[in-house]
């Protein structure tokens, strides 16, 4: 008997889900996809809306982008000659960030090494909780600590005329970015395969030799990414530096000089700048600049991390 002549098989009873359930599922999945791409929409929207407020000043004849980027003269409310130069603010941001990183990177990486290689599981759990709590302290509380406690300490210990300066902001920012560096750095060290450690120990290396001969080179990219994310956090921090670095728009001569950063400048002046004025638009332009800087830093950090995954 050929297959064509075979009798139809007995109808199988396939339970079907009701139509509304299928439609509901479709709709919900569409919602999930929509939320998934929302991150792109929001990043684009942030750039768009910040640039939109800034754009009109860019096309004005008396505004020069060169002056905006490379002049140290920031006189937004001068009655006779208004000048918008952000170089002093950029240098302020860089100096505070550099000092913060000089403190936070060795301590952060040291703590990451201790956490992943030297301490017991119990100590590790405790320290991770402490790091989490440390990273939860709001920036305005850090700023308040800088303004009161730290500034008094600095005046007493160094004899500086004012306690709110690069040193103060640097210490506060270091404390704020250490948790990021520790947790990402520890992840990077954890990602090194255990076989590397076993090979090192089998050759008779001590833990310390293992760390600086094997683990640091192997985890180099991840550690670099940790540092970059720390830099990103420090550059973008607003309230803490607003309160802890003093308000002097000039190139700092030493770490006991007061400065103002790009972020603090926006926070300090946005309230006074009338909406739609040149001053207001230049502040938005500064925001665009900040967005681009942190965008570049984060992108670099991501590519660096991706580099290790490829390997």
């Amino acid at each position, binding site marked *: 008997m050929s297959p064509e002549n075979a009798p139809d098989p007995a109808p199988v009873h396939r339970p079907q889900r009701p139509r509304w359930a299928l439609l509901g599922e479709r709709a919900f999945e569409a919602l999930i996809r929509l939320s998934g791409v929302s991150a792109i929409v929001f990043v684009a929207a942030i750039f768009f809306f910040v640039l939109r407020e800034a754009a009109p000043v860019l096309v004005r004849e008396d505004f020069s982008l060169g002056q905006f980027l490379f002049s140290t003269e920031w006189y937004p409310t001068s009655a006779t000659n208004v000048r918008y130069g952000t170089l002093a603010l950029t240098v302020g941001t860089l100096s505070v960030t550099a000092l913060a990183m000089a403190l936070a990177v060795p301590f952060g990486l040291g703590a990451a090494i201790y956490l992943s290689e030297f301490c017991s599981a119990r100590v590790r759990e405790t320290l991770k909780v402490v790091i989490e709590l*440390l990273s939860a302290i709001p920036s305005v509380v850090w700023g*308040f600590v800088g303004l009161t406690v730290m500034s008094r300490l600095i005046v007493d210990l160094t004899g500086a005329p004012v306690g709110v300066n690069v040193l103060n902001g640097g210490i506060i920012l270091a404390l704020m970015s250490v948790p990021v560096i520790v947790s990402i750095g520890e992840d990077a060290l954890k990602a090194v395969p255990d076989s590397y450690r076993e090979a090192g120990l089998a050759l008779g290396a001590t833990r310390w030799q293992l760390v600086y001969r094997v683990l640091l080179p192997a985890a180099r990219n991840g550690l670099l990414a940790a540092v970059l994310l720390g830099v990103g956090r420090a550059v973008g921090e607003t309230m803490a530096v607003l309160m802890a670095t003093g308000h002097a728009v000039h190139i700092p001569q030493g770490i006991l000089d007061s400065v103002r950063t790009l972020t603090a400048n926006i926070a300090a002046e946005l309230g006074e700048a009338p909406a739609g004025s040149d001053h207001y638009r230049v502040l938005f332009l500064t925001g665009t600049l900040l967005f681009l800087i*942190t965008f570049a830093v984060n992108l670099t950090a991501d590519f660096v991390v991706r580099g290790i995954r490829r390997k």
Partner: protein
Amino acid sequence: MRFARTPHVARKERAEVAAKAIFALMAAAMVVPLVLIVGYLVYLAWPSLGWEFLVDVPRRGMTEGGIWPAFVGTLYLVGISLLVSAPIGVLAAIYLNEYARDNWFNRVVNLAVINLAGVPSIVHALFGLGAFVYAARLGYSILSAALTLAIMTLPVIIASTREALASVPMAFREACWNVGATRWQTIRAVVLPNSISGILTGIILQVSRAAGETAPIMFTGAVFFKAVGRGELFPYGLHEQCMALSMHLYTLATQVPNVKESLPYATAVVLLGSVLLVNASAIALRVWLRGRKKW
């Protein structure tokens, strides 16, 4: 049995001990500031702290009295921002972890999440001002400020939810697909019930982040002062401006002359205390749930 130590080995071991001590000190250097800062703030805040401080309103040009309007304002902002960011964040994480294939588009989505997390808070403030206050015509209001906060907290909710989803073993999903369930049925019946605790902990942690933010709400809806009844539970409408704890601390510390000495410290302690309390309970919840996990 142990071999006699050669000078080389002895030197090696000394280096080992020294390295361990130095790294331990660096780790300890993180614990010390946390304890010192909290202790010192509480010490200076002590004269003002108490129930009365929490439920009273600011008096005499904010130089005396309590923090009730600011406290409630923060609850408003955090609550509303959470209503927006939690659903979007959780759904986005489900997309990234359960649906997204590894192609260029989803790599861009991932990059966007990472970059959204890195945008400085003051840029979020500028965005909120440009988009919600002016373009969407919401004005300076609780709604504008809460939406700004929501977008700011979104990437962290996405990250923590993804982590919770990723911790559900792949075999669970495969078992479910094999009995004929669709992707969404699998997520609802298997993935979400097994990760809901992790998702909730992430959201709770996010609450504490949002409560401490100052810059994003400063120019979108938070004000220096607003008159509110003592202990009043629902003092604000959504289109009104409100006070917020973080902003109140900034104001007391920098803008108000002749404040009672312990007042800003007490405000800082209440803010820090609530944030750390919420955080600590989320961590405790996580540790407890991890102990109950069956795989």
